[in-house]
């Protein structure tokens, strides 16, 4: 006689909502005629993400103190709920951006299905409570992302990106798996809290496992030197997918990284803290310096996402209340800016029918004032300028680092920002300072019809980016309550 475990469906709701949307979309793929498929699919996906977001918000409201669900498989707490809200938001905007993407009609529904599935995977991933669910959730959205990256199959670049992402991703997850196995081996436990309870601090097997787990997670957060796949995948993937990857994946990966490290390896804090700090510096250096000579805008943004992983890892390395707040706060404007930037790139891409380079970005700011100004704001946000949340984010991150005494991390971050000014403002320069008249750009088949949905998506990103600068207090409060749900 098997006594079925009690399942807290409410805790599962966000993932389930997205999963349901995915299933519905598969139905759409089958039953809805091709003519209306695009609209219906997009709507369903959007609704799914919104529903997930709303559920997650409820979840955040209704789970003041963390509990484990279904034995120890997953956790219900505000930390994950907040991350789910952000992820759902990213997904929704990504849908808006995807709407006019030129992809094969026969697979548009599957595309959205995979998008929602990936979202569901991330929503589950951030709730993972033991190493098994961690690995499974990772694979869940990773596999979906592999396919999404390569979905524009006729683009050799897309295919190449997909394959590279897949191979390296598989290696990464194998590493994570092996590390989990080692940790399981020494502790005999799978769930985070009991791994922590089992002790074995600084046991050789444990630390090697920890190293492998860190490698796997840093791989997902695309932190140097585990980031090598990032530029290629971001550049090759369809731009809306890149937008989604760069924002949601980072949110999930970083949030989970911190949770795993804090809740499963509190005894080796000094070890992983130092490791994360070093990785942060490497990411800052590599991401920013490598971005300088890039010409392809998506690639530039990819490297910038590497460097921003570095910034958020500073917050993780600080590992203090301020750092947790910094991490969660930083993720909000960052994901907005990242989505928005890639959305603008997508718009330009569509009107040129060619990959966007600094060269053919020329004059965009004047031709499309709204998108231009938005891009300008996003770049300033990345750069950490006032009037954008990026500024407050960096401020909090540095504050956290100083609070822990990591002043050298502040120095590194400051220098990195100095370097980054060159290429972020370089994009603005490309958009405004040159005239498209200088270089004869023939928009492929004329300028495409204006894309209100994309504009709305960019607008949302803009509002979040700028709003998070002014409405710091509420966001910080939310982050504070979310952080307080972590074990200490």
């Amino acid at each position, binding site marked *: 006689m098997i006594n079925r*475990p009690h399942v807290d469906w409410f805790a599962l709701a966000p993932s389930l909502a997205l999963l349901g949307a995915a299933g519905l979309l598969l139905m759409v793929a089958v039953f809805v005629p091709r003519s209306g498929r695009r609209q219906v699919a997009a709507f369903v996906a959007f609704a799914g993400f919104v529903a997930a977001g709303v559920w997650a918000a409820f979840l955040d409201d209704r789970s003041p103190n963390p509990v484990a669900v279904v034995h120890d498989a997953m956790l219900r707490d505000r930390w994950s709920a907040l991350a789910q809200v952000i992820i759902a938001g990213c997904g929704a905007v990504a849908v808006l951006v995807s709407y006019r993407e030129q992809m094969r009609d026969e697979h548009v529904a599957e595309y959205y299905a995979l998008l929602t599935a990936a979202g569901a995977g991330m929503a589950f991933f951030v709730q993972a409570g033991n190493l098994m669910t961690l690995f499974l959730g990772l694979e869940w959205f990773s596999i979906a992302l592999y396919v999404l990256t390569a979905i524009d199959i006729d683009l050799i670049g897309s295919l190449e990106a997909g394959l590279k992402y897949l191979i390296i991703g598989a290696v990464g997850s194998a590493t994570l798996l092996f590390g989990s196995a080692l940790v399981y081996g020494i502790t005999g436990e799978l769930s985070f809290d009991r791994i922590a309870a089992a002790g074995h601090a600084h046991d050789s097997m444990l630390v090697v496992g920890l190293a492998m787990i860190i490698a796997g997670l840093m791989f997902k957060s695309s932190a140097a030197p585990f980031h090598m796949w990032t530029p290629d995948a971001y550049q090759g993937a369809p731009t809306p997918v890149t937008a989604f990857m760069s924002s949601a994946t980072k949110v999930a990966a970083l949030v989970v990284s911190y949770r795993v490290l804090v809740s499963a390896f509190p005894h080796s804090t000094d070890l992983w803290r130092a490791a994360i700090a070093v990785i942060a510096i490497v990411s800052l250096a590599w991401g920013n310096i490598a971005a300088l000579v890039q010409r392809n805008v998506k690639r530039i943004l990819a490297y910038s996402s590497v460097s921003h992983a570095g910034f958020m890892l500073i917050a993780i390395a600080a590992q203090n209340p301020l750092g947790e707040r910094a991490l969660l706060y930083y993720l909000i404007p960052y994901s907005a800016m990242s989505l928005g930037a890639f959305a603008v790139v997508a718009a330009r891409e569509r009107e040129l029918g060619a990959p966007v380079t600094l060269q053919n970005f020329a004059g965009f700011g004047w031709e499309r004032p709204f998108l231009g100004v938005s891009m300008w704001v996003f770049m300033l946000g990345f750069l950490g300028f006032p009037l954008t949340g990026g500024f407050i984010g960096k401020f909090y991150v540095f504050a956290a680092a100083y609070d822990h005494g990591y002043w050298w991390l502040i120095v590194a971050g400051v220098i990195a920002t100095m370097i980054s000014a060159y290429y972020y403002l370089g994009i603005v320069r490309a958009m405004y300072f040159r005239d498209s008249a200088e270089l004869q750009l023939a928009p492929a088949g004329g300028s495409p019809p204006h894309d209100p949905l994309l504009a709305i998506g960019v607008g949302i990103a803009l509002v979040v980016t700028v709003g998070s600068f002014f409405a710091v207090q509420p966001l910080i409060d939310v982050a504070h309550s979310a952080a307080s749900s972590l074990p200490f």
Partner: protein
Amino acid sequence: MANFIVWVVWFGAAFACLVSALAVVSFSNPFYSALALIGNLASLAVLYLLLAGEFVAAGQVLVYGGAVMVMFLFVIAYLGDRTEDSPWAGGPSWQVFGAVLAGGALLAEVIAVVALKAGNLLEQPKHIGRSFGTPASLGRLFLTDHLLAFEITSIVLLVAAVGGVVLGSHARATESDARA
């Protein structure tokens, strides 16, 4: 006596496992590599049996040795055998050196781990009951503690299936190739 047989079997399996693994990575023809991998999986299944994982061993043979590898062989056959000359060539000069170094380092680390652990934990495995590793007990786990894992595994498979469909579908007209 039983112990001796176990040793023999273990050595045989381990040896086969290593050899086949090396074969996989060193054969120049993917077809042979795939076959070698089947052997590798089989020998691993034997080791699983030694570790009292009957169900896993069975699954290994059926799912892996059966389904997955068949799929592999099918694809290889579909793509036609393209024997590649000099399988180790290519990449920058420091690639091989670095690869061997990194791999060696990883190996050395784990060995070191084991060596450091030698003598205490790994040598006293817990005593286990008869039902250990039987489908019944595993199934019970799957339906209780690891219910979610079970479900998610199926979801992952579903996602992969959708992906396969999407990727495997036919190409569009040539005008899209121009975008490549």
